[in-house]
């Protein structure tokens, strides 16, 4: 029960890492009418979670495994691998900002952890990134890697959905139904990426990439991505 409670707390969408200020590209997709109803929103959320699984999801597992081994160097390598692959500025900012916030929050709440050591040495080197930090935190808390992966996927979907409620005509029940449906894919995604290494991290979402790169040029926007 103790691990479940930790999973619920640190995987909660209100955990203060600032997820509420990002839309994972949805704001631009809504502006261009690409996402405009329940069906297109669900498709978009599923694309986001798929890209999250084959990209950052691999880094969650790498961070978790490195933390279990107590290997700070491997954690740093995972952070570097994530940072090198954030080719869009806004997603790079999001990953680094949420990573730092998670590391600071975990240090305050849990105390001395590997993440504390990692953030201390990151000052003039490789930044802490969110997916790796999440894996490390859950390993420290005794939550297993499947659940850490699940929390990451849940977070990717709920970030988009909480933005959707503010950006388009969908209500909380629509959002929860979509979340429920998309969560059905998490186990299969885990099964597929669990043997992937950091070098295997990949994403193919040119449409999302173009929307993300265009977003920074919009003058009036609610979200940082």
């Amino acid at each position: 029960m103790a691990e479940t409670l930790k999973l619920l707390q640190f995987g909660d969408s209100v955990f203060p890492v600032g997820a509420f200020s990002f839309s994972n590209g949805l704001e631009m997709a809504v502006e261009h009418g690409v996402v405009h109803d329940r069906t297109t929103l669900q498709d978009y959320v599923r694309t986001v979670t798929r890209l999250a699984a084959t990209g950052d999801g691999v880094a969650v597992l790498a961070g978790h495994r490195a933390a279990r081994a107590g290997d700070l160097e491997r954690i740093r390598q995972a952070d570097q691998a994530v940072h090198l692959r954030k080719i869009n500025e806004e997603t790079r900012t999001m990953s680094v900002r949420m990573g730092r916030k998670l590391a600071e929050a975990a240090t305050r709440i849990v105390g001395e952890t590997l993440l504390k050591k990692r953030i201390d040495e990151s000052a003039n080197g490789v930044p802490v990134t969110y997916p790796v930090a999440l894996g490390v935190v859950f390993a420290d808390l005794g939550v297993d890697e499947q659940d850490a992966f699940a929390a990451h996927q849940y977070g990717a979907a709920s970030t988009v959905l909480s933005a959707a409620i503010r950006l388009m005509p969908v209500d909380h029940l629509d959002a929860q139904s979509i979340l429920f449906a998309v969560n059905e894919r998490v186990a299969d995604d885990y099964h597929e990426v669990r043997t992937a290494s950091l070098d295997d991290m990949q994403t193919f979402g040119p449409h999302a990439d173009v929307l993300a790169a265009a977003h920074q040029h919009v003058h009036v926007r609610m979200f940082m991505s």
Partner: protein
Amino acid sequence: MITLDSARELAPYQDQPAQLPAAANGKVGILRLGFERRGDRTILHDLYRQSPLLVQRALYWDEEMPQLPCVMILTTSGGILQGDRLHLDVTLAAGSQAHLTTQAATKIQEMDANYGTQVQRFTLGEDAYLEFLPEPTIPYRASRFVTDSRVRLPESATMLYGEVLQPGRKYYRDGELFAYDLFSCSLRAERPDGRQLFVEKFVVTPRQFGVARVGVMDRFHIFGNVVLLTSPERAARVFDRTSTPVWDEQTPLASAVSRLPNDAGLIFKVLGQETEPVRAAVRAFCVAAREEVTGRTFPPAFSWR
């Protein structure tokens, strides 16, 4: 020699072709190109080639940059066949410049066993300038292809790397859209001291996860991807000229530029339904890049290309 055979995404395709075995004689294409400065111009001083890859000689056809060797890469087998293993190794000495392209579209032929791979290595010296702008890539039905490219360059050097990916033979018979098995592409850049700059890797497996969906390709078919690796000052000038995103519902066309991590440069992505608007957008970005980096523009495109 580096091989990609152990790539994770190739695990399902390790069977042997009924024809020549994979990586047999005649299936391993090698191209080694070395450029260096001689007086005002750059020459192709080192050339090693092994079929099915072929380069004949450098030509100086660029009227805006008459000192620029232009090299056309040919394939003697009409594209990439199952079991092909291609290697391209390009070195530019300090202060040299080169333009590389292909003679025709890279056609990744239909496959029923095994796969094709391509390893590309680019090494640039101080102040070197390389344009690598091959014709579009067309992955045919059931093709499997993995390409791995690495660029090593100092901050003073520039590489312009542009690719256009087609969905297949769009107008062949009933149309062939994303009917391939696997298209895997990775590009990484690093400094001469080994410091990593960025990595982009995508693996497209249309039967495992749909391509024609929101966030992936949506309603678009053609994907142009251009990477400009150069100094931060030059990148900033190119960014100023090209950063306004395009969202054109009519054509349709969508494009945007982003700054790469670690001050590596810029990445330009463009999506369209037809090849020509995408090529035009890629070309416009390349013109801005060449002008800001070299002070010269591109001559008009050949009317037959």
